[in-house]
């Protein structure tokens, strides 16, 4: 099934989608995929289909909402936007991520010294 893509952690993708919606306002799935591609500068590669799995997950948690609208090139598209609960969750997850990232960073530095 094609070349191997570097795995994106499930939770990480959810966090990225949430942050993208928070920063950019309402977006459709294609737009979110472009934004993540742009930001990650090809470091992370993902099957864009998985974005939709993530969107459904977030929607079922009530962290994002969706409505049908028209895209830039006049196509019918579903636009996703972050909810109030989603913003709260984003704060929480961001804090969580930074804490973990800090710990991992410390551990890795420790190893270099040793």
């Amino acid at each position, binding site marked *: 099934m094609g070349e191997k893509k570097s795995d994106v952690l499930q939770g990480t993708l959810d966090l990225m989608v949430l942050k993208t919606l928070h920063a950019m306002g309402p977006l459709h799935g294609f737009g979110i995929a472009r934004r993540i591609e742009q930001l990650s500068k090809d470091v992370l590669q993902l099957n864009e289909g998985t974005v939709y799995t993530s969107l459904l997950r977030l929607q*079922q948690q009530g962290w994002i909402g969706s409505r049908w609208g028209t895209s830039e090139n006049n196509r019918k598209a579903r636009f996703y936007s972050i909810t109030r609960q989603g913003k709260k969750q984003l704060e929480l997850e961001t804090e969580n991520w930074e804490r973990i990232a800090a710990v991992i960073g410390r551990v890795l530095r420790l190893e270099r010294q040793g």
Partner: protein
Amino acid sequence: MRWLRLWAAKATGLLKGKRLDSEFEAEIESHLHLLTERYLRQGMSSAEAATAARRQFGNVALLQQKQRAQWSFVSPAEWWGDTRFGLRMMRKKSRSNAAVVLALALGIGMNVAVFSFVNALLLRPPAGVSAMGSLLEIWLHSRTSTGVQSYLPFTYPDYAYYRDQSRALEGVLAFDGDGAPTIWNRSGEGQVIQRQLVSGNYFPLLGVHATLGRVISTGDDQPASPHPVVVLSHSFWQRELASDPGIVGRTLVLNGAAFSVIGVAPPGFAGLLVGIAPDFWVPLTSQAQFTHDKERLTNRNAYWLIVAGRMRTGVDARKAQAEMHVLAHQRELNYPDSNKNLDAIVYPATLVPGPYRGYVSAFTGLLLAVFALVLATACTNAASLLLARATGRAREMAIRSALGAGRARLIRQMLVESLLLSAIAGMAGVMLAWWFARLLLELKPASLPVTIEVPLDWRVLLFALLVSLTTGIVFGLVPALRSAAVNAAPVLKEETQSGGLRKSRLRSLLLIGEIAACVVLLAGATLCVRSLMHANSIDPGFDTQHIAVTTLDPGTLGYSPEKVDAFYRRLMGRVLALPGVTAASYVNHLPLGTSREATSVGRHVGHDPDPLLVNVFRVEPGYFSAMGTTLLSGRDFTQQESDSPDAGVVIVNDVLARKLWPGQNPVGKRIALGGEKATSEVIGVVKSGKYRTLGEGPVGVVFRGTLPPARTLVLRTSGDARPLLEEVRRTVQVVDPMMAATGTQTIEEYMALPLFPARTTGLLLGASGILAVTLTAIGLFAVIAYVVSQRTHEIGVRMALGARPTDVLKIVMRQGMVVTSIGLCIGLAAAFGAARLLAPLLYGIGANDPATLVGVAVGVTAVAMLACYVPARRAMRVDPAVALRCE
């Protein structure tokens, strides 16, 4: 709260499934379109752009499937799909599946049957009792002895003390623990029914209320003036009194005394003891009416009451036990002569009395272990069959995995298939268990006055469900994991023999385990069957045909000794006149039964340096000729010697004669019996036999006269004893209409009791052994046949290169024989250890009987060779041209 929202979302998903599906499809469609447009702008051809877009998006079908799974709970559609597919697969291979299901059903059925006995004896609460959880049995425990003999039931004075003094127990009840036949005067004719004496607080403490009338109360049960009242069991009321609604207030004559019926117990209630189903209950203090023992309520040495107490709220078994220790200690101080070293121990109340529970669980545990092993063998068969099939389905699995089925998905598919098999086997197993349980109950000798209910209740069904589920997972998991680990690419590229080595090694391991289990089971089976053959051929010291026996007890009617003697004399005169009867006599109880009498003997009165403990039987003249016991020397008793309490003559068996007077003629010697002031003269010597159990060593026995009122009549006939039984029953009624004979049976029927353990274990283990051998042979055959079919190509090449058919035969046979011999070695070692557990159940054969082990080894090897030979012959006849072409 999060899960609530999630479930709500899923629920809407379930409702709007179709619409969500099409919306999602549209969304993907538009995304792909946008991606394609982007690639077109980068200058790709439209076909290239579409491919690139799809690659970047990933597996659309898989995504849709995941999406659907996310919407739904456990995706019932998928499970249903798996189940339907599994059923279809099963129909395709219906014959081998039927074999697997049958083997599993037998294994599950046997386990469930044994468990239904465990449940009936140890787990099930007594029917109709609401307060079982807070009930504790109390037993007196002698600190100076060990084992089951160290536990004693209560005496009445001890019971009264504990009942009145205990603070932790809300109330203490007592009942007579022995099955107690009573003669009911049914309009002039005696009929034997079962009684139970119970304390006045028995029914109230158990929370049992009468269906009709009232139950016995404390007021009915006063030692000074017991009320002559009786509560009938529901089944007795239905069976014998046609559910007469006006029974309350009527009078029943029981053992010659009038009792008025005050109530009927609720349906199903049969007291607290397994095996005993009383027909009626009477107050404890009215016991003298039945036992004719006026001292029993004050006797501090008569241990006859089973006692249970109900804990107060807030009291647990530990606190109650602590209090019992204190009470026991107080009793020791007050009555050192009778209560010295007597402690009191509590047990949670169940249908089997506490001290005996260990024995029951040990025996049923052994049986469960045996049948678990049989089930394991069946599982191994099923597993190796599925493994073989999984190899055949490697292509299917590879295609599924290439289409995006994950590992978990494949494992689930395979597990659903194996669980389907085990579910069908489980259902068939429950039906078999019902039938097995009936069959096992049939084994119970008719003379054992025990009734056991073995219900298939929810506990048994739950056990069956658990066993079936575990079975399905155990035999399905390994093949499932194996087939899920498929490597798609090589399989799809038509490379054959993929992963063959590892898989066949696993199959070999399974086979080794199966053969080892088979050896253990077969060794156990052979031991038990041989022991049964031994037991059947043991000479009990009397004839086991042409004899009819029956038990009588005019003492229950309160007859005087003169009246008892008159009854027996008249009966003897009548039975001797019956057609075909050649000899008749009375004995206090038959050997190999449940009653015994023992005494010590010596050569001199007083302190004999080495007293011998012997069994005592009390007989009338003609007993030895009626039983067919050989009189070796001397003479039989005369009627006068047998009647007189101080005749001073005895007959001994030759074991005792040899012990006391080795090498001398014992006739005319004097013998001192324990507790007697004068010695007795030995007037005869009879051939020794078996007296307590069939497996016992030589036992010394003294025969003497003076029989008690309860006796067994022994009749010898020239022909078949069966037609005589009805005549005997009628004759008893003619001689005294109030008397009723119990246990009227032929000696063959009587022997069912001593042979019971050997017959049960022989049948159960024999069946398990045969089953194990059959399963193992099938398993071995199937695996070797499969290996041959997999190696057809290789064999063809070998033969084309000049291998002779015998070489091929050797290769195939060697593969089977290596597995067999490893399994055999492990199995023999295990059997050597396991057989020890059987030792107490065996007659005339050691647990590690070398002949048995060698025989089993030879037998298993022979069966294994045959199971390998059939497929190996097929391999021999492989046509190289055909074999090579089929690739």
